[in-house]
């Protein structure tokens, strides 16, 4: 008789751990414990992805920065060995320059860097302050509780990026809904395809309007590149799509998740509430970016020439994943890393990534967060969570980590 096994097939002892790993429900702000264990044990480990592929995971801060700054690795999702995210990508085309390598990446990126320069962003601060104040007025005019995500966290970056791009905010339902689908890891390829096409169609229309009649906005400046023959309409649309999406989900999640983290750390919240020093607030923003690290699925690259990482040669055609959230908790760089400490110098965090693909919108994100964190708790000093922490739904099912809702009262 053929051999039969009654129990489950034992796992091969050298089978790599699965990535991404699960967070500990009781520590929603911390990276998955298994990921932290791996960091403590080894600088480089094979992991297994949803599709059975086995890229390398780079666990430590110094190695992650070196790899993200290394021209021998590619951000092109079509490169052999590129570690694919949670499921097959449903959208057509690439998400513009973030999925390209230099020199094309640099050429396209430089077309949209102008409005994100530090001083230009600084000039927007009074407008952002007004947006934040108006939204707080709106919340306070009604009895609580309210959902801080819907009423505050999401409208801020949404209003700002719409203003910057020149997209009418009245259309926000369309792109907020579609963006949600596009960043949900459990969305089917079909769902993601539909959302992407709907967004792209909308933005293509907006660009066509600017081609006919330019205004003083970023979409017109992108349209101008089409007129000049530097990019085609499709590339312009992809670029606009990237900026619109990137401007939404990231900052919104930092606002809501950051507020929840502060409510769980009242001593740190008090520091922010009681400080009038813009430098302190700016430092606090860096620490919250380090501590929360909302991009939790790793920065992914394909190795195009053999490289040495932590003493080991990684071959061309192999994939590497830099789990930036554990780099930001690397005790070699940030002492007592799991403690939220708004007084620490956290500026070297990699929450915006590192290397040539480092976040383009970071000066804008920083300024928005400085205004938010510097205003909200002063204006509503009695802000509290209006549900049990256990009842908060965390976004373990999205490319960007955060909370689905945050009921608050005062």
């Amino acid at each position: 008789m053929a051999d039969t096994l009654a129990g489950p097939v034992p796992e091969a002892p050298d089978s790599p751990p699965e990535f991404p790993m699960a967070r500990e429900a009781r520590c929603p702000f911390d990276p998955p414990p298994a990921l932290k264990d791996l960091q403590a044990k080894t600088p480089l480990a094979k992991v297994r992805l949803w599709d059975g592929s086995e890229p390398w995971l780079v666990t430590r801060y110094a190695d992650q920065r070196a790899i993200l700054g290394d021209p021998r690795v590619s951000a092109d999702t079509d490169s052999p060995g590129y570690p694919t995210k949670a499921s097959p990508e449903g959208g057509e085309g690439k998400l513009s320059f973030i999925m390209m390598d230099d020199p094309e990446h640099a050429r396209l990126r430089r077309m949209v860097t102008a409005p994100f320069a530090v001083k230009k962003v600084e000039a927007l601060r009074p407008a952002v302050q007004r947006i934040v104040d108006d939204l707080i007025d709106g919340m306070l005019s009604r009895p609580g509780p309210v959902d801080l995500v819907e009423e505050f966290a999401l409208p801020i970056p949404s209003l700002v990026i719409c203003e910057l791009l020149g997209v009418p905010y009245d259309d926000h339902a369309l792109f907020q809904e579609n963006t949600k689908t596009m960043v949900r890891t459990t969305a089917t390829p079909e769902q993601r395809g539909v959302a992407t096409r709907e967004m792209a169609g909308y933005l293509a229309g907006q660009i066509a309007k600017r081609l006919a009649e330019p205004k003083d906005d970023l979409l017109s400046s992108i349209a101008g590149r089409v007129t000049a023959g530097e990019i085609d309409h499709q590339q312009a649309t992809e670029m606009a799509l990237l900026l619109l999406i990137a401007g939404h989900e990231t900052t919104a999640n930092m606002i809501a998740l950051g507020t929840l983290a502060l409510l769980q750390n009242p001593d740190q919240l008090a520091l922010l509430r009681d400080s009038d020093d813009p430098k302190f607030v700016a430092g606090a923003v860096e620490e919250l970016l380090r501590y929360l690290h909302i991009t939790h699925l790793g920065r992914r690259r394909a190795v195009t020439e053999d490289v040495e990482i932590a003493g080991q040669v990684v071959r061309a055609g192999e994939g590497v994943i830099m789990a930036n959230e554990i780099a930001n908790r690397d005790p070699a760089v940030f002492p007592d890393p799991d403690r939220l400490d708004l007084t620490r110098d956290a500026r070297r965090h990699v929450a915006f990534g590192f290397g040539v693909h480092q976040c383009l919108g970071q000066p804008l994100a920083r300024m928005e967060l400085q205004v938010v964190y510097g205003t909200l708790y002063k204006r509503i000093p009695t802000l509290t969570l209006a549900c049990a922490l256990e009842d908060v739904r965390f976004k373990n099912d999205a490319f960007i980590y955060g909370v689905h809702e945050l009921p608050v009262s005062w």
Partner: protein
Amino acid sequence: MKVELEADKCVASGQCVLAAMDVFDQDDDGIAILLEEQVGDDRLDDVKEAIAVCPAAAIRLVEQ
């Protein structure tokens, strides 16, 4: 000490401006420019911070 900047490597993250505003600025496209080539001890820490946070490794300090 002399500061060197390779502008063609710059990715316009603005990190250097935030770290050392009187040494670095950005042009109309956000690309870093040097305001001062020579820095004294008083600004050395800021420039070192700018070097540490520059994502494109576009800044260097050269002993003279």
